[in-house]
């Protein structure tokens, strides 16, 4: 790995060894609240294959960011985290900072939502990009800067040599997000977690950033987990999607299938609030009624989505459904998963 960097004139390469598969089993995260711990992520299972692009979709508060930050050990120390993490065939203790730190950055990079505040305002862009490499990986400063220059060029920043000596406040929001991406790529990670990377940006810039991430994934064999609240954003990006509601995965499937025949009422609800080009222009959008459930209101005695669900049945208010495999995906809904049938009326 360090050798590849040392040979820094060669094009930047990703890791194609195919072994770096990430598996997460039963991830549960709780925070101390007014009445003991409140669980915000319930029993999350997730797999990411090398080179795969995945989307985690959900409203704010659904636990999508928290679960990914827990994966990297970036939550407050008072968070209670349990579950099993396997990375590249080895078990990693998910509750130990010491065990997670080798993964952070080097194996799994992260790009955050707000590029304005996610870069240190008092440090040059170059220094922020090379710091981890120089400090912990023994790469020479000169070499690291060369690599930073190449990466900036690759993410579409002109005059990268000069730009390295500038400070974050001298860049626009879109530029900063490009820098964040380049910085995350510095140690040649196998995987990138992008937490709503385009939410704070203009619409046109959003598209550019997503295209950039997609081409990086295709060219470097990088796995990408894109966290978003917007299903429209992921349509041309991800291969597979997890839909989360109230700290649980409610549906998981290849994206194409999910967009065409959603199996969970929440997924179809999300889809019907997205304007689509393949539908009549005057078709009204249907926002999901009600408000998202609060984490402390979640019980095992009812489906969390039942209060907002147009298809809720009696049983939905009596027991939380489990995530069950259905065909090529999984869904947790009494209507679908339990019977294995997708009622025609659900697909709007």
């Amino acid at each position: 790995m360090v050798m590849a960097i040392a040979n820094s004139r060669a094009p930047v390469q990703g890791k194609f060894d195919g072994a770096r598969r990430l598996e997460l089993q039963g991830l549960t995260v709780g925070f101390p609240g007014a009445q003991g711990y409140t669980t915000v992520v319930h029993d999350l299972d997730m797999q990411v294959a090398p080179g795969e692009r995945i989307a985690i979709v959900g409203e704010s508060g659904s636990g999508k960011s928290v679960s990914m930050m827990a994966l990297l050990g970036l939550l407050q120390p008072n968070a209670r985290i349990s579950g099993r993490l396997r990375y590249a065939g080895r078990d990693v203790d998910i509750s130990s900072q010491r065990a997670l730190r080798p993964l952070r950055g080097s194996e799994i990079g992260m790009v955050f939502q707000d590029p304005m505040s996610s870069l240190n305002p008092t440090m040059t862009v170059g220094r922020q990009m090379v710091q981890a490499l120089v400090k912990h990986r023994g790469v020479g400063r000169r070499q690291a800067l060369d690599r930073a220059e190449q990466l900036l060029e690759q993410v579409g920043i002109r005059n990268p040599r000069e730009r390295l000596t500038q400070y974050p406040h001298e860049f626009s929001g879109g530029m900063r997000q490009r820098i964040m991406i380049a910085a995350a790529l510095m140690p040649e990670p196998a995987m990138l977690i992008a937490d709503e990377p385009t939410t704070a940006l203009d619409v046109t810039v959003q598209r550019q950033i997503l295209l950039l991430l997609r081409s990086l994934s295709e060219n470097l064999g990088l796995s990408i987990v894109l966290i978003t609240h917007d299903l429209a954003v992921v349509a041309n990006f991800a291969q597979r999607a997890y839909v989360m509601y109230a700290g649980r995965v409610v549906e998981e499937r290849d994206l194409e299938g999910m967009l065409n025949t959603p199996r969970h009422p929440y997924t179809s609800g999300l889809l019907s609030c997205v304007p689509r080009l393949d539908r009549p222009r005057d078709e009204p959008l249907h926002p999901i009624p009600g408000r998202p459930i609060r984490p402390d209101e979640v019980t095992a005695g009812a489906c969390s989505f039942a209060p907002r669900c147009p298809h809720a049945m009696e049983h939905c208010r009596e027991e939380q459904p489990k995530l069950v495999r259905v065909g090529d995906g999984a869904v947790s809904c009494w209507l679908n998963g339990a019977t294995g049938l997708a009622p025609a009326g659900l697909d709007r």
Partner: protein
Amino acid sequence: MLAFILRRVGGGLATLILSSLVVFSVIHLVPGDPIATAMGTDYNPAVDRALRQLYGLNRPLVVQYWDWLTSLLRGNFGYSLTTKTSVWSELSQRMPRTLILLAGGVVISLVIAVPAGILAARFAGGVIDRLVVVLTSSVLSVPQFWVGLLLIGFIGVKMQLLPAGGYYPFSAGVGQAIKGLILPWITIALPMSAFIARTLRSSMMDVVSQNYVRTARSRGLSERSVVMTHVLRNASIPVTTVVGLEIGGLLGGAIIVEQVFSYPGMGNYMVNAVLRRDYPVLQASALLFTFGFILVNVVVDLVYGVLDPRIRVSR
């Protein structure tokens, strides 16, 4: 950056000229005639005229100001009305003493405050944190000179561990000189360190929850590197502001501490000059204090610019 430096230095010079004018004119508004005071009961009109001629007190104020300013620039600070000695020769002896006092005080206060602030923030809510909060608020709530008096009383007089005051020249032995300075240094350092420690504590707690710190952590930086390079640097920006605001307090502290410890520095010289209405001495020492004050403020501004690149471009 160069433009920034020039702007700040220029601003400092302008303030200095303005303040020299203020020092000069305020002292000439003083009621009570210095010559008459100096002669006391032996008042003699002829001597009065001669003295006014000698000190140039019979000329227009504008001319006096100009003369005063130009002779200051030539290193002539005039003569004391009470001791008749050259103000400059006295000041040049006393200035290094005050500078040593201040420099030592600042160093000690940083040595105390920086670890205390970092530890308190790192273990917020813990024993160290509470101790730091209680100790700093106690120190900031009592007069500085009282702390000095207690140190003299307990350590100097009761236990006889260190000299209770006075000045021991370095030429007569470095060890004794430093021993004599320890209590004054601590007295100067305590309030300053309390203030720095508190500011550092709260600004570190602020910075550590910033998004860019999370970013730094997500890159796999060790906790130590995160704190040393990302947190400390950003947390030191408000600390710099506080140090800037505290310089006045520091100079005031030096003046008082010199009085408490009978330390023959500039502050001591000036206080006595005020009590005796010795204008040349008062003018010169007030101007020097103000000069130092403005100089340090400019330096703090520059440090601020170094620490925070955003400052350099704004205004």
